[in-house]
C-alpha cells in the first residue's frame, strides 16, 4: 500500500491509528454540514448507549445484561493488548479475569474496604500476575506459550482459586453490588465509565512511544531490538496493561454477580474471550467492544427478538430440511464439477436429512428425532460463536472491525470510502510463531 503520511504528528497522535492504516491524505476536509452529520451520528450512538437502548428499547429491565456487555468489552480490550499488540495468544484469560474477581471480593468483604479500592487493588494484582507470566513469554514464544497460558488458566482455576483462605475455596466468596442489592442501573454506568477509562488508556498507549514500540515488536522482535526498542521491558509492559484491564474487568464481574466461585472461570470462558476478541477484530477498539457486547448480549438478543426463541425450538424440523437441501445441492454441484468426494459428502448429508424427514420408513431415526433436544439460548451461543469465529478467521480476518472501518474513517473526517480497511490492512499475520 503506497502510503504518504502528510498529516502532522500531533494530529496523528490524536487519531491513534496505526501507521499502516493511514490512507493518503487527499486534502479533503468535510463541509460544515458534513461535520454536523458526523457529529449527529456520534451523538446518536451516545444517546443509544446511555438512554435509548437501555431505557426505551429494553424497557429498563436488562441492566444486568448491559453491564455484563460493558465488562466483556473491557475483557476483550485486555485480550486485544496481548493478541493484537504484544503478539502472543492467551488461552488462559479466565485466570487473569478470575484473579481480579477474587482480589476485589477479598478486599471488599474480608478487609471491609470500599468498592473502588477493591477494583484498584484487583487491577494492580491482575497487572502483577500478568507481568510474571510475561516474564515467561520472554523465554517461551509462539505455540508453546499458548500452551503455557492454557495450562496456567487451568492451574489458576483448580489450584489458585481453590485456596481456602484467599478465595473461600469451593464455597466461593461474596462480592456485594456497590450500588445496593439488585440495583443494576447505576452499576451499568459505573461499568461504562470504567470502559471509557480503559479505552482512554489503550488509546493513549497506542498513540505514544510505548504503543509504537509494541507494534514494532509484534512485527519482528529482532528488528525492533536493532532499532533500540527494549524487547523485554515492552513485552512485560504489554502484559502488565493486559493484566490491569483484565483485573478491572474481573472485579466488575465479581460485583455484578454478587458472588465469585472458581467454577465460573473455566477453560470454555477463556475460549469465549478469544472468540469475541478475534471476531471483534484485533487492534480495532470499536470492533472489539461491539464483538464482546454481542457475545455478552446473545442471550438477551434471543429472548428479545420476536419469535426467535420459538423458532429455535422448532429447529428439529428446520435442521433436516436445511441438511437435505444443502447436502443435495452440494452433491449436484459437486457431481457436475466432477468433484467426486464433494458429491459423496453432499449425498450422505442430504440423505441423512431426507431420512430424518421421512419418519415412516426409518423407525430407528424416528425414535431419535422425537427426543431431539431443543436449542436453548445458552447452547445457541456455544454453537453460533464458534461458527462466527471460523467464518471470521477464514473469510474476514479483520472481524467486525474490518466491516466498520469505512464508517470510522468517515467519522474521522474523511470521504466515505467503502474500501478502507481491506483485508491486507488487518490480516492477522502478526502473532509470533
Amino acid at each position: 500500500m503506497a502510503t504518504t503520511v502528510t498529516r502532522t504528528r500531533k494530529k496523528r497522535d490524536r487519531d491513534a491509528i496505526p501507521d499502516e492504516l493511514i490512507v493518503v491524505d487527499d486534502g479533503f476536509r468535510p463541509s460544515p454540514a458534513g461535520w454536523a452529520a458526523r457529529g449527529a451520528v456520534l451523538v446518536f450512538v451516545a444517546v443509544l448507549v446511555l438512554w435509548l437502548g437501555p431505557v426505551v428499547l429494553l424497557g429498563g429491565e436488562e441492566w444486568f445484561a448491559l453491564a455484563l456487555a460493558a465488562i466483556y468489552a473491557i475483557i476483550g480490550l485486555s485480550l486485544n493488548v496481548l493478541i493484537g499488540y504484544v503478539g502472543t495468544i492467551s488461552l488462559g484469560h479466565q485466570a487473569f479475569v478470575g484473579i481480579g474477581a477474587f482480589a476485589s471480593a477479598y478486599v471488599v468483604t474480608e478487609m471491609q474496604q470500599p468498592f473502588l479500592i477493591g477494583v484498584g487493588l484487583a487491577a494492580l494484582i491482575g497487572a502483577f500476575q500478568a507481568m510474571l507470566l510475561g516474564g515467561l513469554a520472554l523465554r517461551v514464544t509462539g505455540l508453546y506459550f499458548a500452551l503455557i497460558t492454557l495450562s496456567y488458566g487451568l492451574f489458576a482455576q483448580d489450584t489458585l482459586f481453590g485456596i481456602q483462605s484467599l478465595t473461600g475455596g469451593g464455597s466461593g466468596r461474596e462480592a456485594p453490588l456497590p450500588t445496593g442489592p439488585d440495583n443494576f442501573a447505576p452499576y451499568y454506568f459505573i461499568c461504562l465509565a470504567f470502559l471509557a477509562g480503559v479505552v482512554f488508556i489503550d488509546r493513549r498507549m497506542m498513540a505514544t512511544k510505548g504503543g509504537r514500540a509494541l507494534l514494532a515488536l509484534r512485527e519482528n522482535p529482532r528488528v525492533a531490538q536493532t532499532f533500540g526498542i527494549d524487547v523485554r521491558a515492552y513485552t512485560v509492559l504489554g502484559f502488565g496493561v493486559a493484566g490491569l484491564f483484565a483485573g478491572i474487568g474481573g472485579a466488575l464481574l465479581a460485583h455484578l454477580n454478587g458472588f465469585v466461585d472458581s467454577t465460573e472461570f473455566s477453560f470454555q470462558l477463556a475460549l469465549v474471550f478469544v472468540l469475541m476478541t478475534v471476531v471483534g477484530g484485533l487492534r480495532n477498539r470499536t470492533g472489539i467492544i461491539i464483538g464482546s457486547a454481542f457475545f455478552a448480549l446473545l442471550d438477551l438478543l434471543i429472548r428479545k427478538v420476536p419469535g426467535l426463541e420459538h423458532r429455535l425450538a422448532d429447529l428439529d424440523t428446520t435442521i433436516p430440511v436445511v441438511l437435505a437441501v444443502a447436502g443435495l445441492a452440494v452433491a449436484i454441484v459437486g457431481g457436475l464439477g466432477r468433484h467426486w468426494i464433494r458429491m459423496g459428502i453432499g449425498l450422505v448429508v442430504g440423505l441423512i436429512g431426507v431420512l430424518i424427514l421421512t419418519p415412516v420408513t426409518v423407525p430407528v431415526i424416528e425414535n431419535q428425532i422425537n427426543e431431539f433436544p431443543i436449542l436453548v439460548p445458552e447452547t445457541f451461543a456455544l454453537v453460533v460463536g464458534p461458527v462466527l469465529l471460523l467464518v471470521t478467521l477464514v473469510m474476514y480476518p479483520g472481524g467486525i472491525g474490518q466491516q466498520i472501518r469505512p464508517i470510522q474513517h468517515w467519522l474521522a473526517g474523511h470521504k466515505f470510502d467503502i474500501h478502507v480497511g481491506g483485508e491486507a490492512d488487518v490480516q492477522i499475520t502478526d502473532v509470533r510463531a
Partner: protein
Amino acid sequence: MAPGDLLAPIKARLGDRFAVVSGALAVLAVVLFLFVIGQREAIVLGLIAGASYGLLGLGLVLVYKSSGVFNFAQGEFGTIAVFALYLATTQGIPYVLSVLIALVVAGLLGLLTERAVIRPLASAPRVTLLVATAGVSLLCIGLEFWIGRPEPRQVAPALARTDRVSVFGIFISDQRLLIFAAIAVIAAALAYFFSRTNLGLAVLAASQEPTATNLVGISVGRISTLVWVMAAVLGGVAGVLTAPLFGFAPAFLTSTALVPAFTAAVIGGFISLPGAFLGGVIVGIAQSVASSLDLFEDVPGPQTASLFVLLVLILLVRPQGLLGGRK
C-alpha cells in the same frame, strides 16, 4: 578439579545424546526414588493414566510433525467418535461394526475440518490455525451439548474383564492393556510410515518445503487431507478406547486429557512418536504422585498444578523435549 571436567569425557563420547541420556537417567532416578519411598501404586496408576494421554498425544504429534499446527480439536475428534459409537451400539449394531462407524465418523470430521478450515488458512500463521482448531473444538462441544445434553453416559468396553492382571495389588483391566497395545502398534506403524514409506516421506517433505514439494509433483493439498483424516481417526481410536473406562459426557476428552496430552507431547519433543508415549507416562506418574503424596495434601488441584509446573519446567530447561533432538 571441577565436577564439570569429570563429565567432559562422557559428554564428548555421547555428543548430542548426552542430554537425552542424562534426562532419561534423571527420570529413572526419580521413578526409583518414588518406588523406594512406597509410591508403587501411584506409579502403576500413573503409567495407566499416562497411556491414555500418550494415545491422544500421538495424534497431536502426527499433526505437528506434518503441518506444524497445534491441533486443539484432537480431543473433540475423539469425543464425536464416542458419541457415534454410543448411538450405533444403542441401535443394536454389533460392537466391532460400531467402532468402525465411529472411526469413519471421526475421519469424516477430520476431512471436513481440513477442507473447511485448515486448507483456506494454509498460508496463515500457525497461531491463527491454533485459534481455528480451538474454534472447531468449541463448535463440536456446542453441538455435543445441544444434541447430547450435558449428562454422563456409559459405553461398553471392547474387553470387559478387569481382574486378569495385577501389578503391586492394582488390577489392570483388559481395556487398559488394549490401550497399551494400541499405542505400541500405532506408534510403530507411524514410525514405519514416516521413515520407510514414500508417502510418509512425502508428508515430511510437504511440511518442510511445501512449494518445492508441489514442484516435484506431490499434491500438498492431498497430503494435508490425508494427515488430518489420519489424525482424526487416531483421535477416534483414543476416544473409543478411553471412553468405556470412566464413561463420557460432552467435551470429556478435551477437558480431561487434552492438556495432559499436549504436555506429554512437549515432554517427548513434539516430533517424536515414542516421545509422546514416554511423555504421557511421565505426566501420568507426576499427576498421580502429586495427588497421593502427603507433601501436597493442602494444595488444591494437585494434578493441574503438577501439570503446569511440569510444562513450565520442561519448556524453560529443555524446550526441545526429551527425545526431540536439536532444533
